[in-house]
């Protein structure tokens, strides 16, 4: 079964606006990662947040993690048309330690209109 569920499934915003995507998961984790996928391409790693961290920043990206609620959010500030892509959260469950397995959510499709 899928570890992560993402919300919303699709998001459409204007350039310059902020985009927020949410991810919920089921089991305790070592870390949570966010990936981006442009149409027809492979996934690209964006950011990793460990279970003992609550917030992390990378450029225009801000990720929060609430382990008590088993949820995470990805905020993209000042969005650009080039941010149009699908975004996936992925979790490294404590049950899978030393196996390297990541379980992916279903993804949020973001469209940024110029």
């Amino acid at each position, binding site marked *: 079964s899928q570890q992560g569920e993402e919300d919303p499934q699709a998001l459409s915003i204007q350039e310059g606006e902020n985009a927020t995507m949410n991810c919920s998961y089921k089991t305790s984790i070592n870390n949570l990662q966010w990936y981006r996928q442009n149409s027809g*391409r492979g996934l690209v790693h964006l950011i990793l947040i460990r279970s003992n961290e609550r917030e992390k920043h990378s450029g225009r990206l801000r990720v929060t993690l609430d382990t008590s609620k088993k949820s995470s959010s990805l905020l993209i500030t000042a969005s650009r048309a080039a941010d149009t892509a699908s975004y996936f959260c992925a979790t490294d469950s404590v049950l899978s330690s030393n*196996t390297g*397995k990541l379980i992916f959510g*279903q993804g949020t499709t973001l469209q940024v209109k110029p």
Partner: protein
Amino acid sequence: NAGVTQTPKFRVLKTGQSMTLLCAQDMNHEYMYWYRQDPGMGLRLIHYSVGEGTTAKGEVPDGYNVSRLKKQNFLLGLESAAPSQTSVYFCASSFQGPDTGELFFGEGSRLTVL
């Protein structure tokens, strides 16, 4: 430095035919993974390997076999293709495991089974 390379990129099979997808990485990564991506399902782990000569089952292993004879290569085989195996297949690799960092993905192999 090519990263993760998948071949072929596209393939059409008839039901019952067999084929092998090849994944090659040049980053000296220990861990390698095969995922499949279907609309609305996110990525699901088929098989993975934590080192040369080792393989293990993921979430959806039925109908697939894998081999990791060389550290840099991870092969995914379909012995008797079925229409339900129509999907986009992604290979990924990581240095030790997601707890130490990110997964690097190939560009995908699109398989259609008629």
